[in-house]
Protein backbone atom coordinates (compact mmCIF):
# COMPACT_ATOMS: atom_id res chain seq x y z
CA UNK A 1 0.00 0.00 0.00
CA UNK A 2 1.31 3.45 -0.91
CA UNK A 3 2.20 5.79 1.88
CA UNK A 4 -0.42 8.59 1.76
CA UNK A 5 2.30 11.08 2.65
CA UNK A 6 4.14 10.26 -0.55
CA UNK A 7 1.59 12.29 -2.56
CA UNK A 8 2.13 16.00 -3.06
CA UNK A 9 -0.68 17.58 -1.09
CA UNK A 10 -0.62 20.70 -3.28
CA UNK A 11 -1.08 18.79 -6.51
CA UNK A 12 -4.40 18.69 -8.36
CA UNK A 13 -4.60 16.55 -11.53
CA UNK A 14 -4.77 18.41 -14.84
CA UNK A 15 -4.21 21.87 -13.36
CA UNK A 16 -0.70 22.15 -14.81
CA UNK A 17 -1.93 21.51 -18.37
CA UNK A 18 -4.74 24.06 -18.02
CA UNK A 19 -2.29 26.68 -16.73
CA UNK A 20 0.04 26.09 -19.68
CA UNK A 21 -2.88 26.21 -22.13
CA UNK A 22 -4.00 29.55 -20.63
CA UNK A 23 -0.54 30.99 -21.06
CA UNK A 24 -0.36 29.81 -24.69
CA UNK A 25 -3.85 31.16 -25.43
CA UNK A 26 -2.88 34.55 -23.98
CA UNK A 27 0.43 34.85 -25.81
CA UNK A 28 0.24 33.03 -29.17
CA UNK A 29 -2.17 35.46 -30.93
CA UNK A 30 -0.16 38.50 -29.77
CA UNK A 31 3.16 36.88 -30.76
CA UNK A 32 1.78 36.12 -34.24
CA UNK A 33 0.71 39.76 -34.57
CA UNK A 34 4.21 40.87 -33.57
CA UNK A 35 5.98 38.42 -35.91
CA UNK A 36 3.94 39.63 -38.90
CA UNK A 37 5.18 43.18 -38.30
CA UNK A 38 8.49 41.86 -39.71
CA UNK A 39 6.86 40.45 -42.86
CA UNK A 40 8.47 41.76 -46.05
CA UNK A 41 5.30 41.12 -48.07
CA UNK A 42 2.62 43.79 -48.09
CA UNK A 43 -0.12 41.36 -47.02
CA UNK A 44 -0.76 40.68 -43.39
CA UNK A 45 -1.45 37.00 -43.95
CA UNK A 46 1.27 35.65 -46.27
CA UNK A 47 4.76 35.40 -44.91
CA UNK A 48 7.44 36.41 -47.42
CA UNK A 49 10.57 37.25 -45.44
CA UNK A 50 12.05 39.40 -42.70
CA UNK A 51 12.25 43.18 -42.91
CA UNK A 52 12.14 46.18 -40.61
CA UNK A 53 10.76 48.44 -43.35
CA UNK A 54 7.25 48.61 -41.82
CA UNK A 55 8.70 50.19 -38.71
CA UNK A 56 10.53 52.62 -41.00
CA UNK A 57 7.38 53.54 -42.89
CA UNK A 58 5.52 53.98 -39.59
CA UNK A 59 8.21 56.34 -38.29
CA UNK A 60 8.10 58.39 -41.51
CA UNK A 61 4.29 58.59 -41.49
CA UNK A 62 3.00 62.10 -40.64
CA UNK A 63 -0.34 60.83 -39.29
CA UNK A 64 1.51 58.47 -36.96
CA UNK A 65 3.64 61.37 -35.72
CA UNK A 66 0.58 63.49 -34.97
CA UNK A 67 -1.14 60.60 -33.18
CA UNK A 68 1.98 59.80 -31.14
CA UNK A 69 2.35 63.47 -30.18
CA UNK A 70 -1.31 63.72 -29.06
CA UNK A 71 -1.04 60.48 -27.10
CA UNK A 72 2.08 61.65 -25.27
CA UNK A 73 0.64 65.10 -24.48
CA UNK A 74 -2.52 63.52 -23.06
CA UNK A 75 -0.95 60.62 -21.14
CA UNK A 76 1.94 62.60 -19.67
CA UNK A 77 -0.38 65.42 -18.49
CA UNK A 78 -2.98 63.00 -17.14
CA UNK A 79 -0.28 60.96 -15.38
CA UNK A 80 1.25 64.00 -13.67
CA UNK A 81 -2.07 65.50 -12.53
CA UNK A 82 -3.60 62.20 -11.45
CA UNK A 83 -0.47 61.02 -9.58
CA UNK A 84 -0.25 64.30 -7.62
CA UNK A 85 -3.97 64.18 -6.76
CA UNK A 86 -3.80 60.48 -5.87
CA UNK A 87 -0.75 60.96 -3.62
CA UNK A 88 -2.42 63.82 -1.73
CA UNK A 89 -5.67 61.88 -1.44
CA UNK A 90 -3.91 58.73 -0.21
CA UNK A 91 -2.23 60.75 2.57
CA UNK A 92 -5.48 62.55 3.35
CA UNK A 93 -7.24 59.22 3.69
CA UNK A 94 -4.68 57.15 5.62
CA UNK A 95 -2.70 59.55 7.85
CA UNK A 96 -5.86 60.88 9.54
CA UNK A 97 -8.32 59.94 12.20
CA UNK A 98 -11.36 58.46 10.48
CA UNK A 99 -13.49 61.40 9.43
CA UNK A 100 -17.15 61.59 8.55
CA UNK A 101 -17.48 60.95 4.85
CA UNK A 102 -14.25 58.96 4.59
CA UNK A 103 -16.10 55.91 3.26
CA UNK A 104 -17.98 58.09 0.77
CA UNK A 105 -14.72 59.75 -0.34
CA UNK A 106 -13.18 56.31 -0.87
CA UNK A 107 -16.17 55.36 -3.03
CA UNK A 108 -15.84 58.53 -5.12
CA UNK A 109 -12.13 57.84 -5.75
CA UNK A 110 -12.92 54.30 -6.88
CA UNK A 111 -16.04 55.22 -8.85
CA UNK A 112 -14.27 55.31 -12.24
CA UNK A 113 -13.32 51.65 -11.72
CA UNK A 114 -16.89 50.54 -11.10
CA UNK A 115 -18.68 52.35 -13.92
CA UNK A 116 -18.42 50.54 -17.29
CA UNK A 117 -16.16 52.48 -19.64
CA UNK A 118 -18.84 53.04 -22.27
CA UNK A 119 -21.06 54.80 -19.69
CA UNK A 120 -18.19 57.05 -18.58
CA UNK A 121 -17.54 57.74 -22.27
CA UNK A 122 -21.07 58.89 -23.16
CA UNK A 123 -21.45 60.76 -19.86
CA UNK A 124 -18.21 62.68 -20.45
CA UNK A 125 -19.25 63.38 -24.04
CA UNK A 126 -22.62 64.75 -22.83
CA UNK A 127 -20.88 66.84 -20.16
CA UNK A 128 -18.44 68.51 -22.58
CA UNK A 129 -21.22 69.04 -25.14
CA UNK A 130 -23.31 70.72 -22.42
CA UNK A 131 -20.59 73.10 -21.18
CA UNK A 132 -19.66 73.90 -24.80
CA UNK A 133 -23.29 74.68 -25.60
CA UNK A 134 -24.16 76.55 -22.40
CA UNK A 135 -20.93 78.45 -21.64
CA UNK A 136 -18.98 78.13 -24.88
CA UNK A 137 -16.24 76.29 -22.95
CA UNK A 138 -14.02 73.98 -24.96
CA UNK A 139 -10.59 73.09 -23.62
CA UNK A 140 -9.54 71.42 -26.88
CA UNK A 141 -7.19 68.57 -26.07
CA UNK A 142 -7.68 69.59 -22.41
CA UNK A 143 -11.07 67.84 -22.60
CA UNK A 144 -9.27 64.54 -23.18
CA UNK A 145 -6.66 65.28 -20.49
CA UNK A 146 -9.43 65.91 -17.93
CA UNK A 147 -11.37 62.80 -18.99
CA UNK A 148 -8.19 60.69 -18.71
CA UNK A 149 -7.21 62.21 -15.34
CA UNK A 150 -10.54 61.04 -13.86
CA UNK A 151 -10.00 57.37 -14.63
CA UNK A 152 -6.21 57.52 -13.96
CA UNK A 153 -6.68 58.71 -10.34
CA UNK A 154 -7.91 55.37 -8.90
CA UNK A 155 -5.16 53.43 -10.71
CA UNK A 156 -2.48 55.75 -9.30
CA UNK A 157 -4.19 55.77 -5.89
CA UNK A 158 -4.14 51.99 -5.28
CA UNK A 159 -0.38 51.31 -5.06
CA UNK A 160 0.28 54.60 -3.21
CA UNK A 161 -2.32 53.80 -0.58
CA UNK A 162 -1.05 50.22 -0.26
CA UNK A 163 2.46 51.56 0.34
CA UNK A 164 1.25 54.05 2.98
CA UNK A 165 -0.61 51.27 4.79
CA UNK A 166 2.39 48.90 4.74
CA UNK A 167 4.74 51.60 6.01
CA UNK A 168 6.20 51.35 9.50
CA UNK A 169 4.66 54.24 11.47
CA UNK A 170 7.44 54.11 14.10
CA UNK A 171 9.71 56.28 11.94
CA UNK A 172 7.06 58.97 11.55
CA UNK A 173 6.38 58.93 15.30
CA UNK A 174 10.12 59.11 16.00
CA UNK A 175 10.40 62.19 13.78
CA UNK A 176 7.52 63.80 15.69
CA UNK A 177 9.23 62.87 18.97
CA UNK A 178 12.35 64.66 17.77
CA UNK A 179 10.35 67.84 17.25
CA UNK A 180 10.10 67.60 13.49
CA UNK A 181 7.23 69.70 12.20
CA UNK A 182 4.56 67.64 10.42
CA UNK A 183 5.79 69.08 7.11
CA UNK A 184 9.43 68.20 7.86
CA UNK A 185 8.46 64.71 8.99
CA UNK A 186 6.55 64.27 5.75
CA UNK A 187 9.32 65.64 3.55
CA UNK A 188 12.20 63.78 5.21
CA UNK A 189 10.54 60.51 6.25
CA UNK A 190 7.19 59.72 4.64
CA UNK A 191 7.83 61.02 1.13
CA UNK A 192 11.15 59.20 0.52
CA UNK A 193 9.57 55.95 1.74
CA UNK A 194 6.54 56.59 -0.46
CA UNK A 195 8.49 57.11 -3.71
CA UNK A 196 8.23 53.46 -4.92
CA UNK A 197 4.44 53.58 -4.43
CA UNK A 198 4.22 56.86 -6.35
CA UNK A 199 6.38 55.50 -9.20
CA UNK A 200 4.33 52.35 -9.46
CA UNK A 201 1.08 54.36 -9.40
CA UNK A 202 2.35 56.75 -12.06
CA UNK A 203 3.36 53.81 -14.28
CA UNK A 204 -0.14 52.32 -14.04
CA UNK A 205 -1.80 55.71 -14.69
CA UNK A 206 0.39 56.17 -17.76
CA UNK A 207 -0.52 52.74 -19.17
CA UNK A 208 -4.28 53.12 -18.75
CA UNK A 209 -4.18 56.58 -20.32
CA UNK A 210 -1.82 55.54 -23.13
CA UNK A 211 -4.01 52.54 -24.05
CA UNK A 212 -7.45 54.08 -23.66
CA UNK A 213 -9.69 53.68 -26.68
CA UNK A 214 -13.39 53.80 -25.68
CA UNK A 215 -13.48 57.12 -23.80
CA UNK A 216 -11.02 58.80 -26.17
CA UNK A 217 -12.98 57.71 -29.24
CA UNK A 218 -16.23 59.26 -27.99
CA UNK A 219 -14.75 62.43 -26.46
CA UNK A 220 -12.04 63.26 -29.06
CA UNK A 221 -12.70 66.15 -31.39
CA UNK A 222 -11.29 66.57 -34.88
CA UNK A 223 -7.47 66.52 -34.99
CA UNK A 224 -7.27 64.77 -31.60
CA UNK A 225 -6.40 61.33 -32.94
CA UNK A 226 -4.38 59.25 -30.47
CA UNK A 227 -2.44 56.06 -31.29
CA UNK A 228 -5.31 53.66 -30.44
CA UNK A 229 -7.67 55.81 -32.56
CA UNK A 230 -5.10 55.80 -35.36
CA UNK A 231 -5.01 51.99 -35.28
CA UNK A 232 -8.81 51.87 -35.36
CA UNK A 233 -8.87 54.15 -38.43
CA UNK A 234 -6.31 51.88 -40.15
CA UNK A 235 -8.32 48.71 -39.47
CA UNK A 236 -11.11 50.00 -41.67
CA UNK A 237 -8.78 50.41 -44.67
CA UNK A 238 -6.88 47.66 -46.50
CA UNK A 239 -4.29 46.64 -43.95
CA UNK A 240 -0.53 46.40 -44.38
CA UNK A 241 1.97 45.06 -41.81
CA UNK A 242 2.51 48.70 -40.81
CA UNK A 243 -0.49 48.27 -38.53
CA UNK A 244 1.28 45.28 -36.93
CA UNK A 245 4.39 47.40 -36.45
CA UNK A 246 2.45 50.18 -34.70
CA UNK A 247 0.55 47.63 -32.59
CA UNK A 248 3.85 46.05 -31.58
CA UNK A 249 5.19 49.46 -30.49
CA UNK A 250 2.07 49.98 -28.33
CA UNK A 251 2.45 46.53 -26.76
CA UNK A 252 6.13 47.16 -26.05
CA UNK A 253 5.26 50.39 -24.20
CA UNK A 254 2.71 48.51 -22.06
CA UNK A 255 5.16 45.67 -21.34
CA UNK A 256 7.88 48.15 -20.35
CA UNK A 257 5.69 50.07 -17.92
CA UNK A 258 4.06 46.95 -16.40
CA UNK A 259 7.46 45.42 -15.80
CA UNK A 260 8.75 48.61 -14.18
CA UNK A 261 5.71 48.82 -11.92
CA UNK A 262 6.00 45.09 -11.14
CA UNK A 263 9.70 45.24 -10.28
CA UNK A 264 9.21 48.23 -7.97
CA UNK A 265 6.40 46.41 -6.17
CA UNK A 266 8.55 43.25 -5.87
CA UNK A 267 11.46 45.11 -4.36
CA UNK A 268 9.06 46.41 -1.72
CA UNK A 269 8.03 42.86 -0.84
CA UNK A 270 11.64 41.85 -0.22
Amino acid at each position, binding site marked *: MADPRAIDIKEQPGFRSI*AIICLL*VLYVPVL*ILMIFSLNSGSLITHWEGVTLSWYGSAFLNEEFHAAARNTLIISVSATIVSTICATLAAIGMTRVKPWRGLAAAFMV*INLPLMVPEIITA*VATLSFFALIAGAFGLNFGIGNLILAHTVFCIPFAYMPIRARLEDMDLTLEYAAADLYATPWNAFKRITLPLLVPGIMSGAALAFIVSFDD*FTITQLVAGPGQTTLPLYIWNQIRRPMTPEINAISTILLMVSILFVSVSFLIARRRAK
Partner: protein
Amino acid sequence: MTTAALSPTTLSKAALFEAKAVKTSARRNRLLSLPALIIIGVFGVLPLIIICVYSFLAAAPYGGVQWKFSTDAYLNFLFQRDIFDDTLQFTPDFLIIYLRSFLFAVVTTVICLLLGFPTAYFMATRPPAQRNWWVLLITIPFWSNLLVRTLAIMFIIRDEGLINNALLALGVIDKPITMLYTNFAIQLGLLYAFLPFMVLPLYSSLEKLDFRLIEAAYDLYATRRQVLWRVIIPLSKPGIVAGCLLVFIPALGAYVTPLILGGGIHLMIGDLIAQQFGSGRNWPLGCAQALILMAAVLVALYFYVRNTAGKVQHG
Protein backbone atom coordinates in the same frame (compact mmCIF):
# COMPACT_ATOMS: atom_id res chain seq x y z
CA MET B 1 12.35 48.61 21.94
CA THR B 2 13.69 52.15 22.23
CA THR B 3 10.56 53.43 23.95
CA ALA B 4 11.10 51.05 26.88
CA ALA B 5 14.39 52.79 27.68
CA LEU B 6 12.76 56.20 27.93
CA SER B 7 11.78 57.56 31.31
CA PRO B 8 8.07 57.84 32.13
CA THR B 9 8.09 61.63 31.82
CA THR B 10 9.69 61.76 28.40
CA LEU B 11 7.40 58.97 27.31
CA SER B 12 4.25 60.77 28.37
CA LYS B 13 5.56 64.02 26.92
CA ALA B 14 6.32 62.29 23.66
CA ALA B 15 2.92 60.62 23.63
CA LEU B 16 1.27 63.98 24.29
CA PHE B 17 3.22 65.66 21.55
CA GLU B 18 2.52 62.81 19.20
CA ALA B 19 -1.19 62.89 19.91
CA LYS B 20 -1.24 66.65 19.35
CA ALA B 21 0.75 66.42 16.13
CA VAL B 22 -1.41 63.62 14.82
CA LYS B 23 -4.56 65.51 15.73
CA THR B 24 -3.66 68.86 14.16
CA SER B 25 -2.19 67.30 11.06
CA ALA B 26 -5.22 65.01 10.90
CA ARG B 27 -7.55 67.99 10.46
CA ARG B 28 -5.39 69.50 7.77
CA ASN B 29 -4.60 66.18 6.12
CA ARG B 30 -8.17 65.42 5.23
CA LEU B 31 -8.16 68.52 3.01
CA LEU B 32 -5.47 66.81 0.91
CA SER B 33 -8.15 64.53 -0.57
CA LEU B 34 -9.94 67.56 -2.01
CA PRO B 35 -8.16 67.93 -5.40
CA ALA B 36 -8.85 64.30 -6.32
CA LEU B 37 -12.43 64.47 -5.04
CA ILE B 38 -13.12 67.71 -6.91
CA ILE B 39 -11.73 66.42 -10.22
CA ILE B 40 -13.67 63.15 -10.01
CA GLY B 41 -16.73 65.00 -8.68
CA VAL B 42 -16.85 67.55 -11.50
CA PHE B 43 -15.62 65.46 -14.44
CA GLY B 44 -16.76 62.01 -13.29
CA VAL B 45 -19.84 62.23 -11.07
CA LEU B 46 -21.46 65.34 -12.56
CA PRO B 47 -21.48 63.80 -16.08
CA LEU B 48 -23.35 60.78 -14.67
CA ILE B 49 -25.96 63.15 -13.20
CA ILE B 50 -26.19 64.92 -16.55
CA ILE B 51 -27.01 61.69 -18.40
CA CYS B 52 -29.70 60.96 -15.79
CA VAL B 53 -31.26 64.34 -16.67
CA TYR B 54 -30.74 63.87 -20.41
CA SER B 55 -32.56 60.54 -20.33
CA PHE B 56 -35.75 62.47 -19.42
CA LEU B 57 -35.41 65.02 -22.25
CA ALA B 58 -36.48 64.94 -25.89
CA ALA B 59 -33.98 64.22 -28.66
CA ALA B 60 -32.83 67.06 -30.89
CA PRO B 61 -33.01 66.10 -34.57
CA TYR B 62 -29.23 66.33 -35.20
CA GLY B 63 -27.90 64.86 -31.96
CA GLY B 64 -27.97 66.51 -28.53
CA VAL B 65 -31.12 67.24 -26.55
CA GLN B 66 -34.09 69.61 -26.40
CA TRP B 67 -34.91 70.96 -22.92
CA LYS B 68 -38.37 69.47 -22.83
CA PHE B 69 -39.48 66.78 -20.35
CA SER B 70 -40.12 63.47 -22.01
CA THR B 71 -40.19 59.81 -21.04
CA ASP B 72 -39.85 58.75 -24.68
CA ALA B 73 -36.31 57.46 -24.12
CA TYR B 74 -37.51 54.81 -21.64
CA LEU B 75 -40.66 54.06 -23.67
CA ASN B 76 -38.55 53.67 -26.80
CA PHE B 77 -36.48 51.09 -24.98
CA LEU B 78 -39.36 48.62 -25.12
CA PHE B 79 -41.94 50.16 -27.45
CA GLN B 80 -42.12 51.82 -30.80
CA ARG B 81 -44.73 54.51 -31.51
CA ASP B 82 -46.79 53.78 -34.60
CA ILE B 83 -46.51 56.80 -36.95
CA PHE B 84 -50.13 56.47 -38.13
CA ASP B 85 -52.33 55.82 -35.13
CA ASP B 86 -49.90 56.86 -32.32
CA THR B 87 -50.26 53.56 -30.43
CA LEU B 88 -47.32 51.93 -28.67
CA GLN B 89 -46.16 48.62 -30.02
CA PHE B 90 -43.94 46.26 -28.09
CA THR B 91 -40.57 46.04 -29.87
CA PRO B 92 -38.11 43.72 -28.15
CA ASP B 93 -35.09 44.63 -30.35
CA PHE B 94 -33.17 46.43 -27.59
CA LEU B 95 -34.24 43.95 -24.94
CA ILE B 96 -32.86 41.13 -27.09
CA ILE B 97 -29.49 42.90 -27.35
CA TYR B 98 -29.44 43.28 -23.55
CA LEU B 99 -30.29 39.62 -23.01
CA ARG B 100 -27.67 38.55 -25.58
CA SER B 101 -25.05 40.69 -23.84
CA PHE B 102 -26.04 39.20 -20.50
CA LEU B 103 -25.65 35.70 -21.95
CA PHE B 104 -22.24 36.59 -23.45
CA ALA B 105 -21.12 37.97 -20.09
CA VAL B 106 -22.32 34.89 -18.17
CA VAL B 107 -20.66 32.42 -20.58
CA THR B 108 -17.45 34.49 -20.46
CA THR B 109 -17.46 34.51 -16.65
CA VAL B 110 -18.09 30.74 -16.38
CA ILE B 111 -15.43 29.71 -18.93
CA CYS B 112 -12.91 32.19 -17.49
CA LEU B 113 -13.53 30.68 -14.04
CA LEU B 114 -13.13 27.11 -15.34
CA LEU B 115 -9.81 28.00 -16.99
CA GLY B 116 -8.68 30.63 -14.49
CA PHE B 117 -9.14 28.69 -11.27
CA PRO B 118 -6.79 25.79 -12.13
CA THR B 119 -4.29 28.31 -13.53
CA ALA B 120 -4.36 30.47 -10.41
CA TYR B 121 -4.10 27.42 -8.16
CA PHE B 122 -1.17 26.06 -10.15
CA MET B 123 0.54 29.47 -9.91
CA ALA B 124 -0.05 29.67 -6.15
CA THR B 125 1.56 26.25 -5.60
CA ARG B 126 4.81 27.04 -7.48
CA PRO B 127 8.02 27.85 -5.60
CA PRO B 128 8.22 31.63 -4.90
CA ALA B 129 10.79 32.43 -7.63
CA GLN B 130 8.72 30.71 -10.32
CA ARG B 131 5.54 32.25 -8.93
CA ASN B 132 6.81 35.78 -9.65
CA TRP B 133 7.38 34.92 -13.29
CA TRP B 134 3.89 33.49 -13.64
CA VAL B 135 2.36 36.58 -12.05
CA LEU B 136 4.31 38.86 -14.38
CA LEU B 137 3.26 36.76 -17.40
CA ILE B 138 -0.44 37.10 -16.46
CA THR B 139 -0.06 40.76 -15.46
CA ILE B 140 1.33 41.81 -18.86
CA PRO B 141 -1.81 40.90 -20.87
CA PHE B 142 -3.94 42.34 -18.02
CA TRP B 143 -2.47 45.80 -18.73
CA SER B 144 -1.86 45.45 -22.49
CA ASN B 145 -3.82 47.42 -25.03
CA LEU B 146 -7.23 45.76 -25.44
CA LEU B 147 -7.65 47.09 -28.98
CA VAL B 148 -4.35 45.51 -30.06
CA ARG B 149 -5.13 42.22 -28.33
CA THR B 150 -8.53 42.11 -30.05
CA LEU B 151 -6.80 42.85 -33.34
CA ALA B 152 -4.54 39.84 -32.71
CA ILE B 153 -7.64 37.60 -32.42
CA MET B 154 -9.05 39.16 -35.59
CA PHE B 155 -5.86 38.29 -37.52
CA ILE B 156 -5.95 34.62 -36.65
CA ILE B 157 -9.68 33.99 -37.24
CA ARG B 158 -10.09 35.90 -40.53
CA ASP B 159 -11.01 34.01 -43.69
CA GLU B 160 -7.34 34.35 -44.75
CA GLY B 161 -6.17 34.06 -41.14
CA LEU B 162 -3.79 31.58 -39.64
CA ILE B 163 -6.41 29.05 -38.54
CA ASN B 164 -8.12 28.87 -41.93
CA ASN B 165 -4.80 28.82 -43.80
CA ALA B 166 -3.55 25.98 -41.62
CA LEU B 167 -6.75 23.95 -42.05
CA LEU B 168 -6.72 24.56 -45.83
CA ALA B 169 -3.08 23.52 -46.09
CA LEU B 170 -3.78 20.34 -44.13
CA GLY B 171 -6.73 19.61 -46.41
CA VAL B 172 -9.20 19.43 -43.50
CA ILE B 173 -11.45 21.98 -45.23
CA ASP B 174 -11.64 23.12 -48.84
CA LYS B 175 -13.01 26.61 -48.26
CA PRO B 176 -12.42 28.93 -45.30
CA ILE B 177 -14.76 28.69 -42.31
CA THR B 178 -16.28 32.10 -41.60
CA MET B 179 -15.47 32.95 -38.01
CA LEU B 180 -14.98 36.72 -38.05
CA TYR B 181 -18.14 38.84 -37.52
CA THR B 182 -20.01 35.98 -35.85
CA ASN B 183 -21.21 35.39 -32.29
CA PHE B 184 -18.37 32.90 -31.93
CA ALA B 185 -15.84 35.64 -32.69
CA ILE B 186 -17.32 37.94 -30.02
CA GLN B 187 -17.38 35.14 -27.45
CA LEU B 188 -13.79 34.20 -28.21
CA GLY B 189 -12.70 37.84 -28.04
CA LEU B 190 -14.40 38.36 -24.66
CA LEU B 191 -12.73 35.25 -23.23
CA TYR B 192 -9.36 36.37 -24.52
CA ALA B 193 -9.82 39.90 -23.21
CA PHE B 194 -10.94 39.03 -19.69
CA LEU B 195 -9.12 35.81 -18.76
CA PRO B 196 -6.33 37.71 -16.90
CA PHE B 197 -9.02 39.64 -14.96
CA MET B 198 -10.14 36.30 -13.50
CA VAL B 199 -6.72 34.79 -12.82
CA LEU B 200 -5.19 37.68 -10.83
CA PRO B 201 -7.83 38.07 -8.06
CA LEU B 202 -8.09 34.27 -7.79
CA TYR B 203 -4.32 34.05 -7.43
CA SER B 204 -4.15 36.68 -4.69
CA SER B 205 -6.79 34.72 -2.77
CA LEU B 206 -5.20 31.28 -3.33
CA GLU B 207 -1.73 32.58 -2.50
CA LYS B 208 -2.87 33.05 1.10
CA LEU B 209 -4.30 29.54 1.31
CA ASP B 210 -3.27 27.72 4.48
CA PHE B 211 -1.93 24.39 3.20
CA ARG B 212 -2.03 22.89 6.68
CA LEU B 213 -5.80 22.69 6.24
CA ILE B 214 -5.31 20.63 3.08
CA GLU B 215 -2.87 18.37 4.89
CA ALA B 216 -5.41 17.95 7.68
CA ALA B 217 -8.06 17.00 5.13
CA TYR B 218 -5.79 14.32 3.63
CA ASP B 219 -4.98 13.05 7.13
CA LEU B 220 -8.71 12.61 7.60
CA TYR B 221 -8.80 10.40 4.48
CA ALA B 222 -10.25 12.97 2.08
CA THR B 223 -9.74 12.23 -1.60
CA ARG B 224 -8.16 14.80 -3.97
CA ARG B 225 -11.59 15.66 -5.31
CA GLN B 226 -13.00 16.18 -1.82
CA VAL B 227 -10.05 18.40 -0.88
CA LEU B 228 -10.69 20.52 -3.97
CA TRP B 229 -14.45 20.90 -3.55
CA ARG B 230 -14.76 20.99 0.23
CA VAL B 231 -11.55 22.75 1.30
CA ILE B 232 -9.81 24.72 -1.46
CA ILE B 233 -12.86 26.13 -3.28
CA PRO B 234 -14.78 27.24 -0.13
CA LEU B 235 -11.61 28.91 1.21
CA SER B 236 -11.02 30.83 -2.00
CA LYS B 237 -14.61 32.08 -2.28
CA PRO B 238 -13.70 35.80 -1.86
CA GLY B 239 -11.28 35.49 -4.79
CA ILE B 240 -13.85 33.65 -6.90
CA VAL B 241 -16.50 36.32 -6.25
CA ALA B 242 -14.05 39.18 -6.95
CA GLY B 243 -12.79 37.49 -10.14
CA CYS B 244 -16.31 36.82 -11.44
CA LEU B 245 -17.26 40.46 -10.83
CA LEU B 246 -14.10 41.77 -12.52
CA VAL B 247 -14.97 39.69 -15.59
CA PHE B 248 -18.75 40.03 -15.61
CA ILE B 249 -19.02 43.83 -15.34
CA PRO B 250 -16.63 44.79 -18.15
CA ALA B 251 -17.88 41.88 -20.31
CA LEU B 252 -21.48 43.10 -19.96
CA GLY B 253 -20.50 46.62 -21.04
CA ALA B 254 -17.92 45.49 -23.63
CA TYR B 255 -17.50 47.91 -26.50
CA VAL B 256 -14.21 47.30 -28.34
CA THR B 257 -14.57 43.51 -28.70
CA PRO B 258 -18.01 43.44 -30.42
CA LEU B 259 -17.06 46.55 -32.43
CA ILE B 260 -14.08 44.79 -34.04
CA LEU B 261 -15.07 41.12 -33.97
CA GLY B 262 -18.84 41.59 -34.44
CA GLY B 263 -18.32 43.96 -37.36
CA GLY B 264 -21.42 46.02 -36.57
CA ILE B 265 -23.67 43.05 -37.37
CA HIS B 266 -23.77 41.48 -33.93
CA LEU B 267 -24.24 44.21 -31.35
CA MET B 268 -23.76 44.26 -27.62
CA ILE B 269 -25.05 46.90 -25.15
CA GLY B 270 -21.88 49.00 -25.44
CA ASP B 271 -22.14 49.39 -29.22
CA LEU B 272 -25.88 50.07 -28.98
CA ILE B 273 -25.27 52.97 -26.57
CA ALA B 274 -22.43 54.42 -28.67
CA GLN B 275 -24.64 54.16 -31.76
CA GLN B 276 -27.26 56.48 -30.25
CA PHE B 277 -24.58 59.15 -29.87
CA GLY B 278 -23.30 58.60 -33.40
CA SER B 279 -25.41 57.61 -36.37
CA GLY B 280 -28.52 57.06 -34.21
CA ARG B 281 -28.63 60.73 -33.14
CA ASN B 282 -30.83 59.97 -30.17
CA TRP B 283 -28.88 61.07 -27.09
CA PRO B 284 -31.73 60.65 -24.58
CA LEU B 285 -32.24 57.06 -25.73
CA GLY B 286 -28.49 56.42 -25.41
CA CYS B 287 -28.52 57.91 -21.89
CA ALA B 288 -31.49 55.73 -20.89
CA GLN B 289 -29.74 52.65 -22.29
CA ALA B 290 -26.56 53.55 -20.38
CA LEU B 291 -28.53 53.94 -17.12
CA ILE B 292 -30.25 50.58 -17.62
CA LEU B 293 -26.78 49.02 -18.01
CA MET B 294 -25.65 50.89 -14.88
CA ALA B 295 -28.61 49.45 -12.96
CA ALA B 296 -27.52 45.93 -13.98
CA VAL B 297 -23.97 46.68 -12.78
CA LEU B 298 -25.28 47.99 -9.45
CA VAL B 299 -27.26 44.77 -8.94
CA ALA B 300 -24.06 42.78 -9.51
CA LEU B 301 -22.13 45.03 -7.09
CA TYR B 302 -24.89 44.68 -4.50
CA PHE B 303 -24.52 40.90 -4.56
CA TYR B 304 -20.76 41.33 -4.22
CA VAL B 305 -21.04 43.63 -1.20
CA ARG B 306 -23.64 41.36 0.45
CA ASN B 307 -21.40 38.36 -0.15
CA THR B 308 -18.22 39.93 1.21
CA ALA B 309 -20.00 41.58 4.16
CA GLY B 310 -21.40 38.17 5.11
CA LYS B 311 -17.89 36.73 4.89
CA VAL B 312 -16.50 39.25 7.35
CA GLN B 313 -19.31 38.62 9.84
CA HIS B 314 -18.82 34.88 9.85
CA GLY B 315 -15.11 35.41 10.30
